[in-house]
């Protein structure tokens, strides 16, 4: 137990901060994912063949390629790409991107592909009559989307989004390969310096279980809130 004490002698505080880092990366990645979903869901639903193709290739490629490969692409290629863009604007110094940003971007793109599929499914299962009714009532497109579609879509999407959240949370463990100190990386460091990998990796597993368990409880409450009246 003294291995987990807070302070200089134990790994308790380090693991605590690492857990906060995992939560921070997961939330950032999930939000970046929503941003991607906001762009690609309309593309996937669009009638234009070209837009449709772009939307479909995004979800197919990202969901068909291992997460680790995407992370390696961002880790090794990220700063190169940013430097290339910067060189267009006349900035030629070396730029190193923070591991947090690369990591949450890589996981965000992956999580975005899953969110896109969830939103597409949710929007498609909304009754066509809703659209016709709002046209008859003369609602503006903006009002129609935010007041009619969104509330119904969220109710349908939340159970599946909770799956996406679980996937995203577990995927953040892969960012440890880039050196960002989250649960997995901290356990690796602790296991290396104490020569007690069994304890620390098992403890990491417990931390992840705790995170998934608590977030499920939270999401269940949201689900009840949004399914009022059904």
């Amino acid at each position, binding site marked *: 137990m003294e291995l987990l004490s807070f302070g200089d002698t134990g790994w308790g505080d380090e693991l605590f901060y690492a857990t906060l880092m995992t939560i921070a990366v997961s939330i950032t990645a999930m939000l970046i994912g929503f941003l991607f979903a906001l762009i690609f869901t309309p593309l996937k639903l669009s009638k234009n063949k070209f837009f449709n193709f772009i939307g479909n290739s995004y979800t197919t490629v990202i969901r068909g390629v291992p997460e680790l490969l995407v992370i390696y692409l961002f880790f*090794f290629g990220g700063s190169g790409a940013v430097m290339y863009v910067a060189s267009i604007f006349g900035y030629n110094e070396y730029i190193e991107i923070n591991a947090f940003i690369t990591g949450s971007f890589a996981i965000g793109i992956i999580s975005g592909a899953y969110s896109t599929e969830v939103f597409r499914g949710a929007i498609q299962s909304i009754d066509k009559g809703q659209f016709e009714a709002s046209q008859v009532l003369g609602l503006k497109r903006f009002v129609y989307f935010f007041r009619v579609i969104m509330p119904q879509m969220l109710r349908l999407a939340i159970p599946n989004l909770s799956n996406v959240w679980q996937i995203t949370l577990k995927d953040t463990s892969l960012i440890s390969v880039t050196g960002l100190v989250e649960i997995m990386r901290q356990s690796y460091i602790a296991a290396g310096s104490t020569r007690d*990998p069994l304890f620390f990796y098992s403890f990491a597993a417990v931390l992840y279980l705790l995170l998934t368990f608590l977030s499920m409880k939270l999401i269940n409450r949201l689900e009840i809130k949004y399914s009022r009246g059904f």
Partner: protein
Amino acid sequence: MITSFPKLLSATVVTLKLLSLSLFFGLFIGLLFAILRLNKNIFINKFAYGYSYVFRGTPLLVQIFIIYFGLGQIEYFRSTFLWVIFKEPYWCAIIAFALNTGAYTSEILRSAFQTIKPGFIEAGKSLGISNKIIFYKIQIPIAIRQSLPAYGNEIILMLKGTSLASTVTLMDLTGVAKYIISTTFKPIEVFIVAGSIYLFMTFVIHNLIKFLEKKYGYS
């Protein structure tokens, strides 16, 4: 880009070996735990639920690390005959993958077993067929048909999961891709080649499952 292609292709063989072996063992584990889940004894039931909850609630990376780095730490374990298997990263990865996919497969099969209409089993019983034959000849074929689409997804998830073998020194497709990236600093080109190989494999698996669904489907 062209010179790296043969290296990546030979690494694909490693990935496919890992995938097929872990799916093979995982299917048995999944079937076993699905049957345990349907058991009426509450302890057996809870044990099977706990297994699938733990393996589905933690990242695959943690599971591999516990098996590969963690188990070797136990002094007693090193002296048993099992150590011959567990000292190899190859078998550790396969054991971790099999246990992981087993947990997901057990959930898929359990829900498939539960959706079988009681009428099928009753029909078998009224014809005087023994419980064992009802299980093998009625319940299992229907469960397989029910679970094919979900199992197809699981195969694709597992294909992506095998990329984690590269974290325990195995040179699978992702491992070789990473090695080439870190030596040549051409991340985008290597990503395109390795990514296309993965996409091709998911495409083949997807169509294979579609074909099987049509073959064994109701209509």
